[in-house]
């Protein structure tokens, strides 16, 4: 058994931290709320670091790394509250690689930017029915794949799609007339494609509503498993980002608890404060343990990846919600001001919780996957 990071993984993580430290990402997260134009463009940084190609096989021009490696980078992005196209990009690259798309090298090299337009795979109770996040909340039907022989066309709508704004290619999961899922590539500039940039509450999350009306698409030869895997990879990346954000918030509240004095004592000596900070640590460490599960399953136990990634998101999402509020709380009044950094973590938590199926759906899937295993054991 060995769960320690390899030298390459330490290097990858440190390099990510170093690359992001060249920007004042926290300040950008604040000013970006009032003027999005002030947000730094971190795509060139991602390309320079080789992130778009991390999960693309080496013979197709990528680095051939594993989901856990991508999670290490995601953690650094979350730690810095950096608005880097990443969460929406990597699942798309995995689908393109599975489907053997001929533009893989350009995608890996960052010349062509892609985004994943997610569809939620059915769980243990759902009709075999794929869904997307709907504008205004809840779920809507997946994109419909139709069109004449040899000319695939997609129609439908997905809301709050991460990193779709600015992407040249959209990798869309749709269902055909029999309800079977198909993966297809759509040019963002093609007719019938509308990508509406939406910004909600957190300047570091670039989101978009994607509407397709008979948009021309090229099918990818991906299996249903590949399409489910892309969804769960997104869940694992959200979990990893959240772990990074929680770790940063935890450091911040811990430092303050040692230097702020009331009644002649550091506030961290009071149990109410101490125990709240320890609770953040407990949840953080649990979530981190589950990142190892997701990483291991991603590489070695594909049949457990849905459970592992959903458990990681459940745990990390809960930790993020708790830590973001605790951080404000430990800081008292100053923590609730615009100028302070604590609210930036809070904003991140508020939006994260509601992306790509939402936090609650992950917990539901943990239950569903475990119940399926129990059924199988019953025979």
């Amino acid at each position: 058994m060995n769960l320690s990071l390899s030298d390459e993984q330490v290097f990858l993580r440190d390099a990510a931290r170093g690359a992001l430290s060249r920007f004042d990402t926290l300040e950008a997260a604040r000013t970006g709320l009032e003027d999005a134009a002030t947000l730094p463009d971190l795509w060139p940084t991602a390309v320079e670091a080789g992130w778009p190609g991390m999960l693309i096989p080496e013979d197709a021009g990528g680095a051939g790394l594993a989901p856990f490696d991508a999670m290490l980078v995601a953690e650094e992005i979350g730690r810095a509250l950096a608005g880097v196209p990443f969460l929406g990009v990597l699942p798309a690259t995995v689908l393109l690689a599975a489907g053997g798309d001929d533009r893989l090298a350009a995608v890996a090299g960052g010349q062509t930017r892609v985004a994943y337009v997610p569809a939620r795979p059915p769980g243990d109770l759902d009709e075999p029915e794929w869904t997307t996040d709907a504008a205004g909340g809840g779920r809507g039907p997946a994109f419909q794949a139709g069109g004449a022989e040899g000319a695939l066309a997609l129609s439908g709508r997905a809301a709050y799609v991460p990193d779709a704004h600015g992407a040249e290619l959209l990798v869309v999961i749709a269902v055909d007339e029999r309800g079977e899922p198909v993966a297809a590539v759509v040019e963002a500039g093609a007719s019938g494609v509308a990508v509406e940039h939406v910004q909600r509450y957190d300047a570091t999350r670039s989101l978009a509503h994607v509407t397709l009306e008979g948009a021309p698409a090229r099918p990818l030869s991906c299996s249903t498993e590949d399409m489910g895997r892309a969804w769960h990879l997104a869940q694992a990346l959200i979990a990893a980002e959240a772990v990074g954000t929680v770790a940063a918030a935890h450091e911040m509240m811990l430092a303050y608890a040692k230097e702020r004095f009331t009644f002649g004592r550091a506030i961290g000596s009071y149990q109410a404060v101490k125990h709240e900070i320890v609770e953040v640590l407990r949840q953080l460490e649990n979530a981190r343990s589950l990142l190892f599960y997701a990483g291991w399953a991603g590489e070695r136990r594909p049949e457990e990846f849905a459970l592992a990634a959903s458990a990681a998101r459940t745990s990390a999402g809960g930790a993020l919600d708790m830590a973001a509020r605790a951080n404000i709380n430990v800081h008292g009044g100053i923590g609730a001001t615009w100028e302070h950094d604590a609210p930036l973590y809070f904003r991140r938590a508020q939006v994260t919780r509601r992306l790509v199926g939402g936090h609650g759906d992950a917990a539901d899937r943990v239950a569903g996957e475990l119940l399926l295993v129990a059924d199988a054991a019953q025979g």
Partner: protein
Amino acid sequence: MDLDDSPEQAQYRATVRSWIEQHRSSAPPARGDAEDAAYIERRRTWQREMAEEGLVGVTWPKEFGGQGRGPLEQVIVNQELNAADAPGVIDVIGIGLMGPCIIAHGSEEQKSRYLAPMLHADEVWCQLFSEPGAGSDLAAVQTRAVKQEDGNWALTGQKVWTTNAQFSAYGMCLARTDADVPKHKGLTMFIVPMDAEGVSTHGLRQVSGEAEFNEVFLDGVVVGGDEMVVGGVGNGWMTALTVLMFERVMIGLSAEGFGYSADRFAPALAAVPHARTDKEVRKRFGQLSAELLAIRFAGFRALSALENGQIPGPEAGLSKITTVNAAIAAGELLADVLGPDALDESGEWAYMISFLPGLKSAGGTEAILRNTVGERVLGLPPEPRLDKGIPFAELRAKEKQAVAS
């Protein structure tokens, strides 16, 4: 990142598995009545058989009858026993805490005298630490040990919540040898033969109705001379801290050993059609299962650190809190789903539901663990204390005064 067995570990696992398969039919049930002498005897026999096969004290050095293997091999044994639904050792306190304590602090004579019979369950051990007036504040123990003219120590006092005392041969007892120094300083750890004159043990019934723990009265018990002291006179607090550290890690990492795992709860819920489709049930089950899965991987992280010669991180200490609370949430959920039938005391869940509120305190209460992690791991300042530097005798007088006024 690698969780799979190495070829040597796979080989070891196969050997362990085949031994358990061959002997499974003679093993007692994994759970039974702690007051039923016949059941306890079967559990001792089972531990002895395992010890003869080298499946007890796997990590202990070979010179003390152990196998000199790593913590991972111990985990392999635990996993295989669990998988076969076979019980582990009866003497969890001896094998988990007191053996390692003697190995760490005991004299050569103590090691050669006590460790082998402990491994074979010929002599079971208990932990005589807590008292009516000393639990979280363990250094407040009042049991007095006085050295007599013949060089023998005589112990007088009362211990409580002593698990397994009813069938133990020895107890590891924290006692006060000097009341005129501050409380942490005047303590000494003794080995107490439970059959010595003046020792009396009375079962204390717990929430479940069973008496797994006891109160133990020591009335001028002559235990012997300095050969019964572990870790030196006046060093009892150090020795106790070693035991407490082993205890927290043991409880935190043994969620599966207690049977608190998502895989065990899932079939019970899957069998109830209305539960499966109930969103609220699913949400609660998903959340508590994520916690239990996290504990499993926190355990792997700790093992991986140990294998690499590092000390496990804070996740090991916090695991106890997670384990207990996730299991409590599971019991609540099962009872909500199954209704009062889940509370039928002959059924599968009532014992677990009754045991957990106490487990929250056992081995360090949740509040105390949070203090410890906050102070030792995070470096947060402790709360001001009113007992620092004050001789123990004086402190007691002050406390009595405070309660009276």
